[in-house]
Each structure stands twice: as C-alpha cells, then as structure tokens.
C-alpha cells in the first residue's frame, strides 16, 4: 500500500507477500535511496572599481 501522505510504501509485516488484483495505473517514484545532503559553495566574481 502506498501512503500518499508520507510517500512511504507499507508492506506486509506478517508472513509471505501480499497479493493484489487490478490494473496497474499511474506510476509513482519513491525514494529508493539518496545521498546525504551536500553543500556546494562557490565564490563568485569580485570586481574592484577605481
């Protein structure tokens, strides 16, 4: 079951796999894995006027 609030998939917590029936419809992507957040810093142009 897909929780559209949290974006999580809820699985069977008991024995075996859950079965299903129905026509596959809308495709949704969930975060299977992700990198840690990374801060990218750059110093831009510095212009001096005399």
């Amino acid at each position: 079951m897909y929780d559209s609030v949290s974006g999580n998939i809820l699985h069977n917590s008991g024995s075996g796999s859950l079965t299903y029936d129905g026509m596959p419809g809308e495709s949704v992507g969930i975060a299977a894995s992700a990198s840690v957040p990374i801060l990218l810093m750059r110093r831009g142009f510095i212009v001096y006027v005399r």
Partner: protein
Amino acid sequence: MKRVLSRMALRACALFAVAVVMAGAKLQAAVQPISLSYTNNMIVAAVSAGALDSTSKLWLVWDSVDRGSDFSAWSVENRIQYAGDIPSADSTYVFDRSRVPAGSVFRVIATKMARSLGEGGYVYAGANQYIDTGIKANTIYGLYIKFMYSANDWSGSNTYALLIANEGNQDFAVGRYAASGEPDGKFYVKHRNTTGTPNGYFDISGSGLGQVHEFAIANQTATLDGVTVVSELDAGAIGQKNLRVWLSNGYPDNTMTEPTGTIPERCCHARWYAVRFDDENGDPILNLVPAVWSGAGILFDTISGRCLANANAATGDLTWGGGELGDAIEGSDSTSAASDSAANEITVSIVPHWVEVGVPAGALTSPSELWMVWDSEDHGRRLEDWPVANRVKYDGEVSSAAATYRFEKGLLPFRCVFRIIATELFSLLSGDGYIYVGANQYINTGVNANAIYGLSIKFQYSANDWNQGSGGNAWSSLIGDDPTYDFTIGRKANGSDGQFYMRYRGVSVKSGTTADLAFTVDTSAPHVITIANQTLTLDGATAVATLEEGSIGTQAIPVLLGCSWAEHSTVPGTLSQRYCHAKWYSVRFDDADGNALLNLKPAVWKGE
C-alpha cells in the same frame, strides 16, 4: 580607472544533519531491548511503557562498527537526539534514516540523566532489596567493595544471608551463615568453593558494626580494611559457575543455573559506597559509583554506562544518602540490538565539471530513475519535497548493476544544498484494484490510535483466523490497536454470530450504551466504514451518531490492518495472532483538524 577582475572558485562539501522526528509510543523496563524496524526513509524504534521518565532521552547512534549498548562509547558526532516528547506510555519514535551513512551500524539507545553522589555518597539496599551486577563470577578475578552492613533478612536455616555472591553455598559468596536459628556475627568467605566449607571469615560485629569497611580479593588473598582475612586462595576467577554476582543477595543455594521462580530474600542490608570487579589482567570490568536517578538511588557503572537499580521490583527504589549531588551522568537505560544499515546508498563525489554518483550493485532495480536535486536548504530524501524546477533526471539508462553516473555540475547554483535521489517506480492500481491481506498477514500503519480522529476504510472481508491466539473474549481484528482496552473493528467469539463489532476509546463504543457496536458485513462485496464528527457510517448510512469526542483510541499504539496487538496489552510488539483476511481498497486516517495522517492506496512494487 582601473578594473581588476579576480575570479576565485571555492568548492567545499559539508555534511548536513537533518533529523526528522515524528512522535509515537512507549518504553520498556530498564535494559530491555528496543525493537527497531526501518525503511529506506526512516528508522522506527518501538519501546514499551514505564521505563522512561522526564529525564529520559532517546538517541539514534551509528558508526562503522557496533559500539554496543553503552551510550558513551558512541562518538558525539554520531548521535541524534529525539527531539519530541518522550511519554511514559507505549510509543514509537521515528528517526530520519538519511543521517546514517551507507554501510553504518546503528542502534537506538535510551538514556536517563543521573547525578553522581561524590565523596561519602552511598546507595542503601534495605529489606528484600538487592542489585544484579550482570557480571558472572567466572569472569571476575579481583574485586573491591566498600560497604556498611546494618542487618539481614532471614528465613529458614542452614543457609546464608548474602552480602555479595553468585551462589550461596558452593561457589563465590560473602555472607552470614547459620546452621539453625539466627547467624552469628561472622561473614564467611567462599572463593571458587565447591565444598560448602568456607575458606575463611571476618567479623564486623561489636565495634565493627555500623562502620564503613573495604573488602577486597586480589592475588589469591582476601583482605578487610587492608588486613588479610583469607590467604592462599585458589588461583583463578572468584567463582567457577557461570552465574551473575549480586549485591545484598545471591542465587539460591546449590543453584547451577539461572534461578527461576521466587528468589530467596535473605538479603544483607547495606550501604554501598563502591564496587569494582577486575578481569584476569587487572583491568576493571565493573566500576560502580553511587548516584541518584529519577529520585532513586542507583549504582552507575562507569565502564558500561549502565544504571543498576533494585532487582526486586516488589520492594521499590533504593534509597541514598551522604555526599553531594555532583556531575550529571548520561546513563544508558535500554538499547536496541545493532542493525545493519543496508548498503544500498549512493555516494557522491565532485570532480571537475561533474557530479559523480556511485551506486552499488543491487541498490536499484529497473525501472529506476536517478535525480539530482538542489535548493538553498535540504529537503530530505523524497523527490517530491524538492521544487520541480530544481530537479534534473539522469538522461540515460539506470541499471541494477554497480555503476557510476555523472551529472553536469554547472547546473548547480552557488551555495546550494544538493542530493542525488534514486527513485523506484511502482504502479498504483487503478479502478477497483486492491491488496489482499490474508492468513498471518497484517500491515502496520505506524499511526497511533490516539492520533486518529477520523477514518475511512474500504475493504472486503473474507475470513478470519482464530485458533492461534488465546484468551477469552477475544477478537479477530480487521483494524485496530488494542481490542480490549482501546480501538478495534473486528469479529468476536470466532465470528460465530456473523457480526462485526467495534470498540472505541476503550471498553465500549461509548455511544450511550455499554455494548460494543455490532453490525453485519457480508463477504460478497466491498464495504466502506467512515468515522467523522462523532458519527460512524457503514456504506454511507449512519450506524452510530453519538460517538464520544476525541481520538478513536486513547493509547499511543500503532493501528494495524488485518490484525491487532495482543488483547489486554499496552505493549505493542505482541500480536493477537487472530487475523481478519480482507481485500483492502483504501485507508485514510485524519487528525483532529481533518487533515490526512495516512492515505493508503493499493500499489504494486517489485511484483508484490
């Protein structure tokens, strides 16, 4: 006018910490494990009631190797404190798994704040109170105790009232003895003793009574206040039996195994000032200092970080005295087992002109997508939480094999936070699609009953299991947390009357009657049950319009689909094992404001 153009580029990477916390359930008695479950996004710790109080904290800790249950052994940089409330009731606590680097081992550790007592401080073990050190006698080669004896409990005869021991008669013991009647003033010492005849004794009666004494065993010699009382002890550990050493008590006489049933309460009442055990190399394996924790006396082990309290739950807390409340001690209270953070994580490195992404084999399955996302702040692991304009999808095939992918670094603006997110595609089932929850199957929604104020479920019931559970007045739950004391919808008495019942906020439906709400649900078609505005409807028709105000349940226990926690239980973790099989079409839970807490739709993912 002269213009000087200077261009400098500084690139740095820093790791950020984002802890997403969500409230949940309850804690267990001291030093009992916390159960863990985790998904790609979160780590959920379920703990049971009663062990934690307002001084308690809950931590997610991680490292490249397991550092055990001692909180202090984990690096300060590798800890996240749970930021929400820690109730004494059953609770679940959610941590953001993104803080745990790939391949790390993690635990959830509960701690409490203790205050050391300093010089002169002691903890008093009185009538029928004793302390389990958790250290086995056959691992202890030297010991030191500082104590003041005051009295002993006594029952029966021909046995010992023990000051410190693993087993009272034929291994290691220091205690009082009487063949009949009350013991004399001597404390007998047994060391690796299998004969029952003491190795020696010391006498602290008379002027010695009521004084602080120091007893030690080292180098095959026992001393009291520095004076030898028994010499030429056998070499080796103080005991031969694999039994834990207790303070102010010991295991039943001649016990060769862990005691069961009632422990003989022949306790030596004493003030405990210090206790130290050493291993074969003379290194301390236990170092107890008196402290105060939640208003009670405890002995804090500076080696393991454990807080040792009275092991006899029937006789209350240890008292304390002397000394001044000193340093705060963060004591480990309970801990989860170590868990392996699955290595299906993504690594990122920055090379000239590119953001290079390493994905280990098996981390992704087809179809998958790889995205680079960025913003001025971190939005976590979910793709949908990042602005649409700040996402770029990898323009190529993504496979399940180990691979390196590249994104153009020039896409990233100055001073941004970025992540690489892999998404796996699954399909929502359209129309009347459903997920079938059958025999011995259930889904843990992770939402506590006392957080839910409205719900809507569409389901088609087919059958129920009954024989696996136990207890009278039992339920097979279609949905619920605790069928006896809180919320459930399900069948009673094996469904013999063909009806479904509901319990709401406790023992009855609270609709002005004392009975559980009864209604008929046939198996031929789906049905919809809603609860909103104190009204329950079945297939659109009002069944009860006088529900009590408030959440559907009063307990902070996660609601399950297809089953419930054990009856009469306030501790999630034990299932009733009585299941309702059903096709599930949709499930929605709302909070007090009508906002969705959960909105489940049937979906297919990886063929399931």
